[in-house]
């Protein structure tokens, strides 16, 4: 036998404060984070925005930019900070591929760390990745709304119907009451 050095760093367990529920929805500003990847996510958040407004919430939609270079990345990060400081509740999506799941969870954790009731949204196939990324960032308990997979590439009407069907479950995930 011989003594060797581990090639892996010792795992540091991060423990952060939990994910608060939304509670009463009426009068709250709900921020929906979009990205530039999925048309289906635009349609889903469009439907959810209408339903949230019917339930008395005010909806703000923010689209995550793709940073081409450091300047844009810094500006994107500043924009996101401004967005989360202007809302009471965050919904971050869509985790529907490897990299977009990473950024959806990254931004969800950013909102959680700012103390906002938050849910991330991912499609079924990407749930394990989303949970692992949340756990790595100290949030095993991240509220995660799971959507059917595949969802991109379906007809718009069908996607909008799926969004409406999943609205109640979104509210449950968020811990929101009417």
């Amino acid at each position, binding site marked *: *036998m*011989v*003594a*060797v*050095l*581990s*090639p*892996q*760093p*010792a795992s540091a367990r991060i423990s952060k404060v939990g994910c608060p529920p939304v509670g009463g929805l009426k009068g709250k500003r709900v921020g929906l984070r979009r990205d*530039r*990847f*999925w*048309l289906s996510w635009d349609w889903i958040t469009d439907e959810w925005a209408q339903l949230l407004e019917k339930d008395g919430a005010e909806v703000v939609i923010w689209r995550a930019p*793709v*940073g*081409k*270079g*450091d300047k844009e*990345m*810094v500006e994107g990060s500043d924009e996101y900070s401004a967005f989360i400081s202007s809302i009471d509740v965050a919904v971050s999506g869509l985790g529907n*591929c*490897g*990299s977009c*799941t*990473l*950024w959806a969870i*990254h931004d969800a954790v950013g909102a959680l760390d700012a103390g906002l009731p938050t849910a991330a949204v991912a499609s079924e196939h*990407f749930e*394990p*990745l989303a949970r*692992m*990324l949340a756990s*790595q*960032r100290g949030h095993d308990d991240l509220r995660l709304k799971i959507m059917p997979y595949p969802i991109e590439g379906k007809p718009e009407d069908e996607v909008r119907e799926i969004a409406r069907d999943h609205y109640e479950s979104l509210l449950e995930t968020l811990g929101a009451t009417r």
Partner: protein
Amino acid sequence: MTSSLVSERIEVPDDIAEFSKDALARGWSDGLPLIPPTEERVQAHIEAAGLDAQHVLGVLYPSGVSCTVEQLAVNAVMAGAPANAMPLMAASISAIADPAFDLAGINATTASVVPAFIVSGEVRDTVGLPYKHSAFGGQAGPAPAIGRALRLVIRNVAGQVAGLSSESVFGQPGRVTGIVTAEWIEESPWPSLGERRGVKGDSVTVFGVLGSANILNSYGSSGSEILEVIGKSLCYMGNNNMDHSAQFAHQLVSLNPVWARIVAREFPKMEDVQEQLYIHSAVPIENFPVSLHRPLEEANDIRPDGKVYLMDTPDDVSVIVNGGKGSLHGCMLPAMSNMLPVTRSLDPATWQSSR
């Protein structure tokens, strides 16, 4: 340089075959044989780096761990990478940790992307990197071990594990031994890649590539013809940056020395070479399946001339010169979208993140 090492000490079999089995079971391995990273071996690599063992090279994702010289050295020993490549490998880790490279996206994505390291300067000969025949793989030398060391860092420090933190549908061979090559600058009509990107002397430039593919043109009568063939090859419909969801990408092309001379006779300036590749890497919208017209239109990807362009501007392609003088072939390394190449000098004093 005196360094105190902080990695966990673990007793393992000293026989290489047994150690390799043990390392695989521990989740340290890519499946190929490994050298036990004893303290003595690791210290020698750290000494060669010329940096303190706890010097942080950058934060690597998805794990979010700050990668130290010590962690690089442990993985480099395991991979069999030579100690004299430590400065190059340290600069390479610093490069992939730059936010512009988007390592987080690269390591998590469904795509097969892998960092490709292009080395400029005299370090090519100090380390013994390939740049003539089979420059991208196949020539005996230290490049595969260096590439593998960087891949083991991605696995063991950045935490990229297939099917767990990486959703890559197919992966690719470059995810095992990496892609490490150098320029044949003596045969290049243009300044080195590093110099064109603002770094003189020894440097490494990292690109996120989806693999390498050969481009044959056995006629090769003029620079225009060669660049047209390459440009039209680059914009194949499934190139990541032809997709409506992609925002930008940076393609990499290598010209063999014979083609480089032919091209430079007609296009002495690199900007003109890039312009030709930009112009030719475009596809008329009617060539796309009808179902893709709407997504491409909504993404503003269709230009007034009715074409979808692979690149936003001619700056979105880099051209290097290497490979054998048998000519006939070019090499393209199509890019992952939404990330940028990053160049690092081998001088650590310049490694401040640009962010």
